[in-house]
């Protein structure tokens, strides 16, 4: 068999194999368990790197490494997987972050310990995450989307903080509700549409035979499913609780990958399959997005718990991503994908640091912390760096998620209201000031000043070798993407243009992609 036919399946199912192997190892043999986890995730990353190398970037608009086999014939659902420029970065992010989570956990197992169970859950989680990003069939997508749910539920429910049961069930029920809605939408598409679950075929169909009101309603069902996962205001209340209670690695995976499943769903499924309904929903989605930006920032300002603050900041950041998507333009969706990756790296990193701070001080109450820069200078500087990245400093990755999203809001798809989206742009831009506010205040409370009396003599460990190994790749990537945004835009742009051009055509709007893409825009004048 050809490598290209197996690559994606390997990337999805190697972690499953690793999970099975782990289950066979006795609980007491922790070293063996850890090594299996590391080897598994590294192998998965290796496969993904192979895919990155073999990927034809000139044709990033087409699905590559495709496999399209029979699966559940009775409902015409197929095992159809593939990657294009939109899903590739997210697949890579997922494989990448999981490895780092294993490394970070090496000596950091949260209570009640039990690395074996934890690792099984982490590997199952990876199956779901990777699978969601490659699935090209709605049922397959749904299955992977749901696989993610259980491991995270148990991670929070077992290894979480004091309020873990409440948080985990809240997380579970919220997302389950969303999933149910989403499935409802998928089924409606199947029965009302061309009796297929194939995402590619459905994107070509693009909701043509539906009456407008039905399409709008179906979009609404999918919207709920994805918006809860993102999470968008006002469906976000599960997020701060889940993050606050989750163990560090759980928070990192939740922030870095799981939230992206929702936004990815919008880009991959909701927009292309029902573009006309999306157009109706866009101003509303944009509105919720900018409310989320301001509201999330204000929520951050009210926090006293460092981790909960970072959790709330996700609501604001994902608002920028959703604003980009709501404009339905090439610029906006490129920005959204960049924003997803950047937020995954930066917020994931912030959760790592918050986890290590808690590990050191056994508290995350910012009023008790202070002077991190004196006690653990390296960690303090990393926190400062991440805060700067998170507030969207140009030259670091976060900026390229925000700025093009704002730009796209100035000129959304030509059939959308300019005034509305320009208002959103200004509001979102004001959100960047608030973001600077809560991040810098957090930084000054945690890192500046002198250590509080209770910790003045405490022995505080600065960044250790495992932390460096887990963190350095993320930090370097944040800088690299900030300086060379084309590392990512270059991959996504063609795929996004193919998609947005189709959407523009469907709704009768002007293309938002420049045909030639030539270097110098030469003025047209006589």
């Amino acid at each position, binding site marked *: 068999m050809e490598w290209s036919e197996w690559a994606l399946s390997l990337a999805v199912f190697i972690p499953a194999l690793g999970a099975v192997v782990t289950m066979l190892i006795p609980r007491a043999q922790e070293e063996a368990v850890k090594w299996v986890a590391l080897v598994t995730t590294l192998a998965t990353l290796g496969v993904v790197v192979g895919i990155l190398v073999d990927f034809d970037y000139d044709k990033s608009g087409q699905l590559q490494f495709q496999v399209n086999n029979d699966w559940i014939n009775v409902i015409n659902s197929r095992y159809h997987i593939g990657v294009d420029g939109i899903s590739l970065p997210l697949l890579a992010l997922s494989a990448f972050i999981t490895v780092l989570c294993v490394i970070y956990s090496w000596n950091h197992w949260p209570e009640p310990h039990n690395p074996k169970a934890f690792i099984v859950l982490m590997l199952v989680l990876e199956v779901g995450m990777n699978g969601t990003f490659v699935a090209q069939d709605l049922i397959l997508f749904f299955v992977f989307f749901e696989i993610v749910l259980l491991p995270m539920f148990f991670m929070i429910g077992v290894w979480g903080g004091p309020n873990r049961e409440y948080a985990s069930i809240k997380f579970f029920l919220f997302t389950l509700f969303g999933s149910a809605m989403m499935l409802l939408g998928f089924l409606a598409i199947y029965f009302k549409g061309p009796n297929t679950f194939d995402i590619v075929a459905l994107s070509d169909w693009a909701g043509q035979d539906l009456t407008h009101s039905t399409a709008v309603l179906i979009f609404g069902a999918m919207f709920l499913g994805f918006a809860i996962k993102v999470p968008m205001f006002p469906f976000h209340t599960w997020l701060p609780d889940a993050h606050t209670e989750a163990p560090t690695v759980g928070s990192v995976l939740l922030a870095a990958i799981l939230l992206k499943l929702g936004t990815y769903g919008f880009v991959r499924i909701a927009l292309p399959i029902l573009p006309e309904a999306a157009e109706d929903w866009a101003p509303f989605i944009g509105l919720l997005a900018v409310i989320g930006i301001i509201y999330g920032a204000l929520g951050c300002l009210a926090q006293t718990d460092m981790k909960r603050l970072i959790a709330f900041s996700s609501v604001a950041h994902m608002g920028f991503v959703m604003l980009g998507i709501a404009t339905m333009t090439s610029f906006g969706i490129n920005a959204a994908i960049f924003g997803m990756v950047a937020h995954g790296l930066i917020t994931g990193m912030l959760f790592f640091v918050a986890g290590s701070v808690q590990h050191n001080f056994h508290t995350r109450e910012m009023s008790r912390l202070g002077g991190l820069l004196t006690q653990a200078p390296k960690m303090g500087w990393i926190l400062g760096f991440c805060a700067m990245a998170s507030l969207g400093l140009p030259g670091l990755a976060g900026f390229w998620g925000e700025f093009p999203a704002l730009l796209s809001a100035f000129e959304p798809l030509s059939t959308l209201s300019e005034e509305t989206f320009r208002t959103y742009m200004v509001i979102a831009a004001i959100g960047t000031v608030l973001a600077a506010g809560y991040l810098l205040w957090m930084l000054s409370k945690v890192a500046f*000043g002198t250590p509080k009396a209770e910790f003045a003599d405490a022995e505080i460990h600065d960044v250790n070798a495992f932390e460096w190994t887990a963190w350095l790749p993320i930090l370097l990537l944040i800088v690299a993407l900030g300086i060379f945004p084309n590392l990512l835009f270059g991959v996504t742009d063609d795929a996004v*243009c193919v998609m947005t051009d189709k959407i523009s055509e469907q709704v009768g709007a002007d293309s938002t992609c420049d045909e030639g893409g030539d*270097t110098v*825009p030469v*003025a047209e004048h006589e």
Partner: protein
Amino acid sequence: MFFLDNAWLVPLIPALSFVVILLFGKRMPFKGSEMGIAAVGASFVLACGAAVQWIQRVGDAEEGGTEHAFGAFGAFGRSIGRIGEEATEGEHGPIVESVHNSFTWFQNGGIDLHVGIQIDGLSVMMMFVVTLISLLVHVYSVDYMKGDRRFTYFYAALSLFTASMLLLVVADNTLMLLVGWELVGVCSFMLIGHWWEEKPNSDAAIKAFLTTRTGDVGLLCGVIMTYFVVQQGTGTGSFNIEALNASAAGYLNPVSGTLLFWCAAALLLAIIGKSGQFPLHTWLPDAMAGPTPVSALIHAATMVVAGVYLGARVYPVFYEGLNIGEANINLMAAVGGITVLIGAALAFVQDDIKKVLAYSTISQLGYMVMALGVGAWTAAIFHLFTHAFFKALLFLAAGSVSHSGAHHSFDMKKDMGGLRKYMPQTYVTFIIGTAALMGIFPLAGFWSKDEILLGASEGDYTLFLVVGAVGALMTAAYMTRCIYLTFFGEYRGGDHAHATPHVDEAEHQPDEDDRLPDHGHHGGPHESNRWILAPLWVLAAFSVFAGFFNATWFDIEKFTEWTAPNAEVFVELQHHEFDVLLALISTAIALFGAALAYAYYWRGLGPQRLSERNGLARTGKQFLVNKYYLDVLYTDVIVAFVKGPLARATYWVNQNVIDNVLNYAGKGAMVFGRFTYDVLDQKVVDGAVNGIGTITDSAGSEVRKIQTGRLQFYAFMLVLAVGVFALALWIAA
């Protein structure tokens, strides 16, 4: 044209130096300072090379020998864009094209966006100023920061700042300019908060960052709009500055006037934030919490003029957007004019020498923005040029006073006085800087300020001529007061025990591993050593002579010639003839101001201690001492409201309304669905709890009962909602 084509090296070298100092600085013999000095020195040499080559290029163009090296961007030229333009070309003098060098930065929507350099007179001038002052500050800091607890980080941050500022200067597109702009902001944040152990310092740093960030909302929106200005002008969106200027100046396809206005207004907000203009100037005096070399470099000579630079760089946007050519008042001139006066007024009531200088900087930046606002483009950047030297000089001299004469205090009333005897060289250089700032003939400030006034008088901006003259009067007076308090009268510092060290610099004490000999930190007031004096004298020389580049009285207009923008893509600039009468009047006004202050402080003439006797005067002084209550408004009203009640209310809504909305709905639904509820309670939620229980037991932990019944409501509501939605779909279908 090596130096021009490769001007990207100028920012790159300090950027590399930043990385090297960060990684290896602590292990270097001089803890990284040698690396910083070497890197900035190299950049300075390259910048000088670029300056020489640029001047040659201008010279070649004048002789008509220029090869029209139509690069990619020549396409924007007005000689192409407009028909029959050749006839007028003569009036504008020769066309000197800027030098470009760029590559693809990123691709979006099928459009390649470039990163690259645009080198012309303006950027060459800025490169020269930034690298020179940065080099001097690097040298000065060797002694001034000696023994500082974060000496190496200080140099790393200086390098990063220099790199960012140079990036901003050479940028050929507004997006890259924005990148540099934000990066200098971060460096400013790092350096203001250099001694972050003390809360006032970190608060000042955060205040500076947030205030400028508020202005940056304008920058974000403005830069976005520049993209669309170019799109309207050329048909394809771009951030390219020359394309922007040509589009805005109207040489290409017509651009919407509304768009230009909003673009100008948004960018003006950015200028207000960065360049300390009213009403966002309040961060600049607080920024004095940083080390003095930082104040000289960042908060006097370079970063704060980034706003003015932006205004000059994309001037056609302002010129057309705000209709500068035809009006007699506009937003930009008004902002600048107000800032001139309010800044100068506040300088009178400061006891801290650095704060006097900070308000003076605000006021002088006001002159520059006002100059742009009245159409005097060359005057604005000329004043930027001269001001950089004499204001950096004044700050560094003030640092010298504090360092060697006042036990690290900056309080003129408590710890200074009579220092001219102890610190003759510092005194002389400070006097030179002051005279230049006052605009005394023939020092640097005279020429540049004169051009601004000339610009205001020749347009219909008479009001701003008056503002400029009043500002000159006030400047002379408050600087005379400052000199009196610092250098004349009796020395008030006393011995070390009685000094009240400035809180920010109090901890500035040598480390144990400080290998250089102590140079008398604990002695009485004395002259500083040569690390500090050498930069002062260099700056003093520039403060005297820099004005002669454009000594219009003697028909020397080299500065105008060298910095003239490419007329093909720029609006037409005014040209002013020297006006002897105006020059005499403005000098007389300055001297009068100095004389008034002299009479008041030296001779004790005039109403002394008026504010203690007269209620009105007291109120006025109180108003000034409280900085027009703007800080109260920002910090205690706006920020406190957002951080306090607003944030808390939002969070309260989050916890008690949104989070519970399903609960409330669930309670209502419960009445109708008792039976379903019971089933659900038993089967679904308990089932879930048992499920966790099993796992948790195996993990060796006890499961506690779910804390509330909230979740049960959730579960019920969720199922119900799915059902309702399914029904709705069914009906709609």
